């Protein structure tokens, strides 16, 4: 059995990272020139890592699935990025950011990793400002902050409602600088389809050129996957259309273990589903909960009238509204963490108080804030979000409360990595949403940007050297090695098989069906019966897929249908693993809510005695049951408590 060694440095929590950096191996400048690194993905983590490696003097090859690194889905993050600068003088500190993140993750994240994240967060803000990221500022010229869920301080830096865009463009410009200087080579419109392993170490990848259809080989001394999360397994999510789990899944099939696949974040404030033809869901930033109040009608009759269009929400008096988050969680109110807010919305809608034509929506109301601050202030803070809402829903949120409902947004689970962000395949690293490392069972708002950039700018540039330190005498790899032949042959086989089925159903029809299974049985509320059903249903769907899918087009040209089919074949396996992981975890924690495990008032009931660990899955072959390993979580420095956002 593979031993999981998390490689957490010895010593007090606050000194671990410093101590690691002091004792790690380094690579001298002359040797860096001899070493190659492949970075797959150009979102915050990938672009930041590739730029930093290039600056340090390594030879870097970057694979980007889109036409430009600037398209990566990090660009869509709206609200902000956390750091413990304590500029507002409201009592913030590295320890508090660490504590909030661990607690927000419902005590299912590794202490040492989260502390390091909090520790380097301040440097991220400094770095981004130096790059010219136009963060929001006060009239004094200094940086402005706002609040996000799960925190009692204002520690979130932002650039209007486009923080992800501005941070990504910062990383993209740093990457472009290195491409211009010749330290980084960019390969765009390439999709990674396999990791190549030589003598037990990751030494390259196979990618499909999405324009010519050619399978290409890339070799290096180390490979970094920064390929994002797998939320699109649900078909409908807030992820971009091209976001997929294939790079991570294919690494998993090659031996990289997968941690906590069941931990999925369902974001409470998204625009509700409106029709079968819908292709994706749109997020409304969590920052809206700073000023918006969430409510449903107090009486079922009113909710019913609203659903039928006989009553407008603005006609309901204060006494007839149930501000259920403020009622249930007085201390945090509308700013409870995402998992808590999502479940509360589901609870109200399931109980018959939902609004909108489908009854699957709640109100997010700005009337009070507009009265208190004036329309111009709300417009300055959230103008672009209000505009986006109006375009999609065709309703004016300045006059009518917004309608929102939870939607799949982020995956906390991912490739298992140690403290160095190295997977169980030596030489294969995973960063950003692709790894499992920092968010436990629930991610706090404004922490994904923080983690992506922390991994890319300030963690990997150190830890990868510790790996490459003893690789300096290893000569450059040739892509003619038999391991490359073998990997390429396998992929060619998969493509030929997919295109040869010539069945009757479109790729999307299968994906939609998988999405329904996942949302209904591996979604916001899960139970043993449903999860067992999900495992069987996915297995059957997978068989059906391989019998009856129709992949049109040619393999040696741009072919979106083939791209989607290749991704879906992986989702059809990953979905099953998610259900298995959810089934085995007999507790409720963070985004993982098992209906059997709740308190009398419907709060999540964690089981620390039996499940205070990371569930780490090992691939055992096609249609074989996977094996689960355990990484126990030892909390040496904080006391593990029941999360309480009530007082």
């Amino acid at each position, binding site marked *: 059995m593979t031993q999981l060694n998390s490689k957490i440095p010895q010593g007090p929590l606050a000194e671990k990272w410093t101590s690691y950096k002091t004792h790690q191996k380094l690579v001298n400048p002359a040797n860096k020139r001899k070493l190659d690194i492949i970075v797959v993905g150009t979102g915050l983590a990938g672009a930041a890592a590739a730029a930093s490696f290039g600056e340090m003097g390594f030879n870097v090859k970057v694979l980007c699935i889109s036409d430009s690194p*600037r*398209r990566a889905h990090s660009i869509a993050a709206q609200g902000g990025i956390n750091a413990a*600068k304590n500029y507002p003088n409201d009592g913030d500190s590295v320890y508090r950011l660490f504590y909030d993140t661990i607690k927000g993750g419902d005590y299912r994240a590794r202490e040492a990793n989260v502390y390091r994240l909090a520790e380097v967060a301040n440097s991220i803000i400094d770095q981004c400002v130096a790059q010219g990221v136009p*963060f929001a*500022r*006060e009239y004094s010229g200094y940086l402005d902050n706002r609040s996000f869920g799960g925190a009692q301080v204002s520690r979130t830096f932002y650039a209007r409602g486009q923080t992800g865009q501005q941070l990504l463009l910062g990383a993209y410009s740093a990457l472009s600088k290195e491409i*211009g200087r010749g330290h980084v080579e960019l390969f765009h419109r390439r999709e990674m389809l396999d990791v190549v392993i030589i003598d037990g170490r990751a030494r390259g990848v196979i990618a499909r050129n999405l324009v010519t259809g050619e399978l290409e080989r890339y070799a290096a001394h180390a490979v970094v996957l920064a390929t994002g999360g797998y939320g699109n397994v649900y078909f409908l999510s807030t992820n971009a259309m091209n976001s997929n789990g294939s790079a991570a899944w294919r690494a998993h099939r090659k031996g990289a273990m997968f941690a906590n696949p069941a931990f999925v974040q369902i974001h409470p404030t998204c625009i509700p589903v409106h029709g079968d033809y819908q292709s994706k869901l749109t997020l409304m930033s969590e920052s809206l909960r700073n000023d918006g109040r969430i409510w449903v009608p107090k009486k079922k009759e009113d909710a019913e009238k609203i659903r039928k269009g006989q009553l407008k929400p603005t006609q309901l008096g204060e006494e007839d509204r149930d501000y259920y988050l403020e009622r249930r969680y007085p201390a945090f109110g509308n700013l409870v963490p995402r998992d808590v807010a999502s479940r509360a919305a589901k609870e109200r809608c399931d109980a018959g108080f939902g609004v909108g034509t489908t009854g699957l929506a709640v109100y997010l109301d700005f009337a009070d804030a507009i009265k208190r601050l004036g329309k111009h202030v709300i417009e300055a803070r959230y103008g672009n979000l209000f505009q986006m809402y109006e375009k*999609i829903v065709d309703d004016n949120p300045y006059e009518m409360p917004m309608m929102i409902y939870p939607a799949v947004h982020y995956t906390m689970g991912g490739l298992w990595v140690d403290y160095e962000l190295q997977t169980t395949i030596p030489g294969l690293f995973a960063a950003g949403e692709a790894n499992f490392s920092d968010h436990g069972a629930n991610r706090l708002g404004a922490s994904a940007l923080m983690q992506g950039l922390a991994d890319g700018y300030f963690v990997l540039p150190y830890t990868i050297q510790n790996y490459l330190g003893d690789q300096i005498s290893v000569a450059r790899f040739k892509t003619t090695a038999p391991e490359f032949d073998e990997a390429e042959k396998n992929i060619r086989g998969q493509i030929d098989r997919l295109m040869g089925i010539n069945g009757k159903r479109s790729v999307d029809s299968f994906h939609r069906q998988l999405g329904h299974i996942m949302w209904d049985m591996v979604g916001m509320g899960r139970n043993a019966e449903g999860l067992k059903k999900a495992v069987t249903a996915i297995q059957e769907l997978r068989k059906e897929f391989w019998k009856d899918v129709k992949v049109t087009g040619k393999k040696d040209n741009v072919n979106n249908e083939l791209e989607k089919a290749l991704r879906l074949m992986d989702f059809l396996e990953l979905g099953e693993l998610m259900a298995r992981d959810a089934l085995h975890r007999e507790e409720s924690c963070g985004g993982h809510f098992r209906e059997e495990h709740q308190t009398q008032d419907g709060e999540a009931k964690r089981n620390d005695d039996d499940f205070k660990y990371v569930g780490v899955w090992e691939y055992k072959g096609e249609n074989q049951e996977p094996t689960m390993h355990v990484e126990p979580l030892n909390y040496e420095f904080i006391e593990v408590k029941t999360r309480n956002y009530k007082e």
Partner: protein
Amino acid sequence: MKFTLKIWRQENAKAQGRFETYQLDNISADCSFLEMLDILNEKLVNDNISLPVDTITFDHDCREGICGMCSLYINGRPHGPEQGTTVCQLHMRRFNDGDTITIEPWRAKAFPVIKDLMVDRNAFDKIIQAGGFVSVSTGGVPDANAIPVRKEDADLAMDAAACIGCGACVAACKNASAMLFVSAKVSQFALLPQGKIEAKERVQAMVAKMDELGFGNCTNTYACEAECPKNISVENIARMNREFFFSKLTLAKRESNGGGVG
């Protein structure tokens, strides 16, 4: 709703393109433009269940108006009829039932067609690589609040930085000029103290690269501003021109040392 679609089909960069006509029925008014194309593609797959068929290729990704991937020229306008909107945020309710809609790719020498409605916008990346950055490496920077910025300047920089790099400005311009795109990046950095240090070299390098890649000149028609989905202002072009001429006059010769802009 019912539509007749005239869509540009082109097998690859070298092939001859042509318009194909498609009919679509039962489209909800709340459906987005790209979802309408999804429906058409799924119909193509299902209707031609035994014939060899190829779906219509178009670039798209985030579908929330921020990644800049979508790039359709609809009824003669980049991103279609709605002001300040990307195609992915355009909904069918903006059209009339029974409309004929013509869909083409971006057309510009610097943006060659790859297939159908997909074009190659790599030229934009090359312009950024020529100088669209501050030459700062990771680490070793001062505390964020050690660089105060006037709020007005930060806001103007943000207005310029909101560019999504979709290329609608180039597609809208009769000269296929990239001035709005380039000036947005030049302005963002010219307005901020962090960017001022390399401002002269940056504007020269980016403009030179833009010319080299085959983008046209600006003749002040303002079509770019009118069609920009993010409402980037042509004031940025004025600012870039000022930066350009000023730097031309005052730029000291810098030895090329492998570092710095350009």
